[in-house]
């Protein structure tokens, strides 16, 4: 069985930077070459490559080289683990608050007795 702590290690650090978040958003729409990914940012290629390395090290993205073109891609399983956790938190709060709605309704009824 995979170690989920290792999987998630440094994921949040990787997503703590606006440049890296934009790269990940772009890659959610499909794979892209490094050159295209770097275009929207006003920084030198070496700085941009450092961001890509952090994303790759965190396991959020992978890259492969074909000829002279390096193409990046998101690793969906990493992102899914995080999304799933936030979805579950949302479900917990929704359920909990439905209980509170019912309780408030009952207490309101008790008050007017």
């Amino acid at each position, binding site marked *: 069985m995979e170690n989920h702590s290792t999987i998630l290690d440094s994921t949040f650090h990787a997503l703590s930077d606006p440049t890296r978040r934009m790269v990940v958003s772009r890659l959610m729409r499909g794979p892209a070459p490094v050159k295209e990914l770097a275009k929207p940012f006003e920084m030198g290629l070496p700085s941009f490559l450092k961001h890509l390395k952090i994303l790759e090290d965190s396991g959020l993205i992978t890259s492969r080289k074909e000829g002279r073109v390096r193409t990046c891609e998101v690793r969906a399983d990493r992102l899914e683990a995080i999304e799933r956790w*936030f979805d579950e938190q949302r479900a917990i709060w929704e359920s*909990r608050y439905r209980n509170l709605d019912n*309780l408030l309704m009952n207490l309101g009824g008790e008050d007017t007795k």
Partner: protein
Amino acid sequence: MKPALHFDFVADKSNNTITVKREFAGKRQLVWDCYTKSDLLDRWFAPAPLTTKTKSMDFREGGHWHYAMVDPQGQEYWSRLDYQTIHPIDHYSALDGFSDETGAVNPDMPRSTWKVTFTDASDHTFVQTVVSYGSAEDLDKVIAMGIKEGLASTLNRLDELLLQLDA
């Protein structure tokens, strides 16, 4: 019945926080009581199909609520909420954490800070809860546990079971 009450859930991954905003059909004093009195908390705090069981409650700055969420098989998930600041009936802040049945907080698991604010919205009450983790690493740990064996996965299993039983 599905009341059209405002609900807003925002997960800020860059800031390690969750912000939950919700409107309730009740006066602020009553909603405040539901959040701060254990006999009332026991009636709503755990998400279905779990139930809440209070071991002890000392609602004052420096005091804490020691409680368990209990699943239908009787498995208990203990937690402890340590109250830091209290301003009735406007807001309170507290430190959440996993504990055991004796109330000892698990030192290996990160704790989150809760800031809960209550405001009037005509004859309703508006509650905002901000849950923040100290760092990305803290949140990683909590998520990793949730995936492995936490409450959240228990809920999923139960949801699946309930769906099967309904079918």
